[in-house]
């Protein structure tokens, strides 16, 4: 379902869905005149969040439901931006376990949350009513991009 302002996608926990979601998100973001760099930030952050849902929330089980909602927002301090919500009905991961790993340690895994928190201006995980997880992220047009030094997102 899609309106002029918002994007809502219902899909399943299959890795093959990810390219389609990235395309839809790119199309949506471009309508709101995000820079190419910020569109890429949004797409990567959402892709990382969905990867975590598939891997950890649904533990690799395909065919499980995921909903992605994106809406433009206007904040008094930060100006124009977007709020992106990802909802799943998978395992409720303890919130204190959702943290990026020590980047001084060379090992695979644990990088997705770190990328999300660096690319977005705000990222908040919660346990959803009725089971599963909800991730709400916000990003703003005029927030300085912090790149590798980016930190402090909630």
């Amino acid at each position, binding site marked *: 379902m899609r309106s002029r302002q918002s994007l809502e996608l219902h899909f399943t926990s299959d890795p093959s869905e990810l390219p389609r979601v990235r395309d839809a998100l790119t199309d949506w973001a471009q309508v709101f005149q995000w820079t190419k760099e910020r569109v890429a930030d949004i797409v990567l952050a959402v892709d990382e969040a969905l990867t975590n849902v598939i891997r950890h929330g649904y533990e690799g089980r395909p065919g499980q439901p995921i909903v992605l909602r994106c809406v433009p927002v206007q904040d008094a301090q930060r100006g124009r931006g977007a709020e992106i919500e990802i909802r799943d009905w998978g395992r409720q991961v303890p919130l204190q376990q959702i943290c990026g790993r020590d980047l001084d340690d060379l090992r695979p895994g644990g990088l997705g949350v770190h990328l999300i928190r660096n690319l977005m201006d705000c990222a908040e995980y919660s346990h959803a009513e009725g089971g599963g997880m909800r991730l709400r992220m916000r990003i703003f047009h005029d927030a300085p991009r912090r790149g590798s030094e*980016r930190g402090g997102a909630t």
Partner: protein
Amino acid sequence: MNEAQHQMEVSVSVDRTAAVVRVRGEVDLRSSPELREKLLNLLERPLKRVIIDLARVGYIDSSGVGTLVELKRRLDRTDGRVVLVALQPRVRSVFEITRLDHFFAIVDTIDEAHKA
């Protein structure tokens, strides 16, 4: 973007002590298992250097970089070396945000990679 642009292709050429892996397309949760399999298969040979050409990779996520980290960790055990070549800006950005650019040798050309 059409489906073909999302696909990943991997080609490998190997000589006595080095392999050159050319990757094209998008490396994500869907495609990274195939990349992982091809890279780890290389470890059956006594390679001293694996050169990974990423010039035609426009998108990589943490599952993709995690695959490269796994290869590097395994080659480190035998004093082997992984060299990444020609990262596009968005791909380089992922390595920078995750600070993996400090761990990998990253160069601009295949020739440089043979010497790095």
